[in-house]
């Protein structure tokens, strides 16, 4: 089936540093998402991105977070500066259509550890 790739698979950084998580979505998909899963907890929505704009974000999407997809390349999640509570697995997803009309396909996740 369609595949979403995420780079890197693991990242360890010191608190206060910047980190960029990269997502390579399914090629003809137009809607992009980030989700966060803290160890032992449920997966939670962070943000939805379409046509260069954030469509919806949750309260977990702090001011230190930003997303972009410059020139149709990777869809990125940047955290600057990072905090200890940002340690989690971050999953990227993409879909061809929005408004819940289509399947979201998920990447394997990036495991972020902030020390």
């Amino acid at each position, binding site marked *: 089936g369609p595949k979403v790739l995420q780079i890197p698979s693991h990242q360890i950084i010191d608190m206060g540093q910047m980190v960029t998580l990269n997502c390579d979505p399914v090629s003809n998909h137009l809607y992009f998402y980030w*989700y966060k899963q803290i160890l032992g907890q449920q997966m939670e929505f962070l943000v939805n991105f379409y046509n260069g704009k954030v469509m919806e974000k949750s309260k977990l999407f702090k001011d230190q977070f930003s997303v972009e997809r410059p020139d149709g390349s990777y869809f990125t999640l940047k955290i600057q500066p990072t905090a200890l509570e940002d340690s989690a697995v971050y999953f990227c997803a993409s879909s061809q259509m929005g408004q819940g*009309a*289509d399947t979201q396909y998920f990447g394997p996740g990036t495991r972020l550890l902030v020390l």
Partner: protein
Amino acid sequence: GDQVEQSPSALSLHEGTGSALRCNFTTTMRAVQWFRKNSRGSLINLFYLASGTKENGRLKSAFDSKERYSTLHIRDAQLEDSGTYFCAATTSSGQKLVFGQGTILKVYL
């Protein structure tokens, strides 16, 4: 707010038997997806439903938006079906999935 309650949290099945997982929603949802998490932690898509039922091999899923629930039925369970299953529903805004807590399924001989 939008919440998804998934049950049971854990399930043990003898090989060849079957059972059902269920997700109840606190609000009206537009669609539901069912996933299985593989050994590497990746989410494998099982079903997407905006209404009605779908079947794929030994799996069958149903979604009733009005009654606010979805089910995943597994029949003739095999050892390789073991894993963690999640439902996730698309909220009325259509912009996000809300996940259930997951069901850990163990199939034994």
